[in-house]
C-alpha cells in the first residue's frame, strides 16, 4: 500500500501537464502547435529521466529511440498509395504494412523497447564517461543509418503524408502514460535498487543488487517511452533525421538538467519551462504581442536562450530548479546531510 505521503509526487507533475493541456485547448490553433510540441517534449524528457535520474548514468543516445519510434509509427501509418510515391525505396514489408494510429504508437513503443534492450545489453556494463561516449556513438549510428537508408524510410527527406493524429488529448495521454510509468517504476523495488547503485555502486553490488540488470531494465523501459514519444512526435510534425539527433539530444538533456535530473517533477518542470521559453522565442521570430509591446527576435534566439539558461543553471544550481526533489510531505533531508559529512576534497 502506497502511503498517502507519496501522492503529491505523482499528482504534481500530472496537474502541471493537465493544466498545460487545458491551456492549450483555449488558445488559437497557431499557438496550440507549441503546446502540443511541449507535451511531446515532456514525454521525451520523462523517458530520459527514468533512466538518467534513477541510474545516475548519462545517456546521449535516447533520441535514437525516439527516432526509431518515429520512423516506425511514421512509415506504418502513411497510406499505402502515398508510400509508393514518397518512399519508393522501402522494403516490401514496410511498403505494404499499414496500421492504425494507436497500433502505430504501440509498435513505436515496442521498437523502442527492443532497440534499447539490444543496445543496453552490452552497453550497460559500461559506466561513466565510457557509457556516455558509447550511447553517443549509438545516436550517431542510428542517425547516420536513418538519414541515408531509403529502405527504412524517407532517408534525407522529411516525412510527408503522415496523418496528423496527435491532438491535445493524445499528446496529454501520452505524456501522462510516461509520467505514470516513471512514477510506478521509481516507487517499485527495481527503482529503489537502481537508485542504490546511483549512490554507491560498489556497496549496492555488495548488497546483492545486479547493477547491470537494473540498469538494463530502466534503459529498456525508458527506450519504450522514448519510442512512444517518437510515435507521437511524427504524427505532429513532418520530421527529418536531422531533427532527431544531436540538437534534440541537447535540448531534452538541458530540460532535464535545468528542471533537476534527480526527480520526476524536475523532468516535467524542466520540459514545460524550457520548451515554453523556447516556443515563445521561436514564435517571436515572427513577431509576438507582449502586453501591448511588439517583440520580434532574430532566428536562433530561442536556442541561445535555452543554451544560456542551461549554462547558468549548471553553474549556479547544478541540482536544477527542483533541486532533484519531488513534492512530498515531509521532506527528507538526511541523505543530503550525510553526503556533506563525507570526506572533503
Amino acid at each position, binding site marked *: 500500500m502506497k502511503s498517502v505521503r507519496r501522492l503529491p509526487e505523482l499528482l504534481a507533475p500530472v496537474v502541471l501537464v493537465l493544466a498545460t493541456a487545458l491551456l492549450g485547448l483555449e488558445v488559437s490553433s497557431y499557438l496550440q502547435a507549441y503546446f502540443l510540441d511541449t507535451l511531446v517534449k515532456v514525454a521525451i524528457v520523462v523517458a530520459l529521466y527514468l533512466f538518467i535520474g534513477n541510474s545516475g548514468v548519462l545517456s546521449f543516445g535516447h533520441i535514437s529511440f525516439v527516432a526509431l519510434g518515429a520512423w516506425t509509427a511514421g512509415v506504418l501509418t502513411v497510406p499505402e498509395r502515398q508510400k509508393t510515391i514518397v518512399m519508393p525505396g522501402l522494403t516490401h514489408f514496410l511498403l505494404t504494412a499499414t496500421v492504425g494510429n494507436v497500433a502505430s504508437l504501440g509498435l513505436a513503443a515496442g521498437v523502442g523497447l527492443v532497440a534499447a534492450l539490444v543496445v543496453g545489453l552490452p552497453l550497460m556494463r559500461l559506466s561513466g564517461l565510457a557509457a556516455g561516449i558509447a550511447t553517443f556513438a549509438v545516436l550517431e549510428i542510428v542517425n547516420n543509418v536513418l538519414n541515408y537508408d531509403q529502405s527504412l524510410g524517407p532517408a534525407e527527406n522529411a516525412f510527408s503524408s503522415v496523418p496528423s493524429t496527435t491532438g491535445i488529448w493524445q499528446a496529454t495521454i501520452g505524456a501522462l502514460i510516461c509520467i505514470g510509468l516513471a512514477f510506478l517504476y521509481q516507487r517499485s523495488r527495481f527503482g529503489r535498487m537502481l537508485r542504490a547503485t546511483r549512490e554507491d555502486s560498489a556497496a549496492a553490488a555488495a548488497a546483492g543488487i545486479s547493477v547491470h540488470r537494473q540498469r538494463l531494465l530502466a534503459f529498456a523501459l525508458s527506450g519504450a517511452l522514448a519510442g512512444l514519444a517518437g510515435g507521437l512526435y511524427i504524427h505532429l510534425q513532418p520530421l527529418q533525421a536531422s531533427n532527431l539527433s544531436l540538437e534534440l539530444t541537447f535540448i531534452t538533456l538541458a530540460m532535464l538538467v535545468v528542471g533537476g535530473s534527480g526527480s520526476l517533477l524536475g523532468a516535467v518542470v524542466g520540459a514545460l519551462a524550457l520548451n515554453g521559453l523556447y516556443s515563445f522565442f521561436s514564435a517571436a521570430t515572427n513577431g509576438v504581442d507582449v502586453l501591448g509591446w511588439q517583440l520580434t527576435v532574430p532566428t536562433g534566439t530561442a536556442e541561445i536562450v535555452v543554451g544560456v539558461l542551461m549554462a547558468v543553471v549548471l553553474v549556479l544550481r547544478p541540482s536544477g530548479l527542483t533541486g532533484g526533489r519531488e513534492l512530498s510531505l515531509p521532506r527528507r533531508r538526511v541523505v543530503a*546531510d550525510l553526503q*556533506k*559529512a*563525507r*570526506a*572533503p576534497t
Partner: protein
Amino acid sequence: MTTLAVEGLSVRYGAVEAVRGLSLEVQAGEIVGLIGPNGAGKSSTLHAVMGTAPVSGGDVRHDGRSLVGRRPEDVARGGVALVPEGRRIFGELTVEENLRLGLAARRSRASGSGLARAYGLFPMLQEFRRRHAGALSGGQQQQLAIGRALVAEPDVLLLDEPSLGLAPKIVDVVFEALGRIRESGLAVLLVEQRAQRTVAFADRSYVLANGELRLTLGPDDASDTERLVAAYLA
C-alpha cells in the same frame, strides 16, 4: 617568534567535527610529536595547516602570519612542507623528477642546492634518480617523499605517519634522518601511530583523542605506558 603556532583550531567536515579547539606550537630546531588513536584528528590538523581541510575556527600561524584561507600551493611556497600520508609520490615520474617537483615551492633562486640536500640525506635517491618512482620499495618511497619535501628548503616540515607500512629497519632509517633534519634547524611536526617511539624521540608530544588535546608528554614519559593508554582511551 614561534615558527608554527596552532591556536584554538577547529576543523569541521559538514556535520562532523574532526578537531576541536586544538592549540600547540613548534619551534625551529625541535621535533614535536602528535599521536593518538585512529580518527583522532591528527591528519586533519596537518591538512588544516596546509589549507586542504576546512577550518571552522581558530588560527594557524607561521612566523606570526596566518595561514588560514590561503591556497595550499601558497602555504607551501611560504615555507611549510608536508610529507603526506601514504607518501603520495608520482610513480610514473622518475625519482629526480619527483624531487624537482619539490623545487616548485623553493624561495631562493638557486636550484642546485635543493636537490643536493635530498641526495645528501638519502644517498640512495641519487643512485636511483633515473628510475621510475613506482619501482621503488615502500621504504625508498618514504625517503623520496621526505627528500622531496626538503628540496624546497622549508622552515616547517609536517609528516603524516611516515612509518606506516614500513619494516622496522626502514623505520630506523627514517627516524635517523629525522634526527639529522632536527639538527639543521627545521621545525618538525610529526604525526605518528607508533606512540612510544615518537614520545621517546620527540622533544615534546601531544596526545590527541576525539579531536581534542588530551595530554602533553615529554621523552621521559615514554616508558609510562599506563598514562599513555589512559590518554588514548579517555
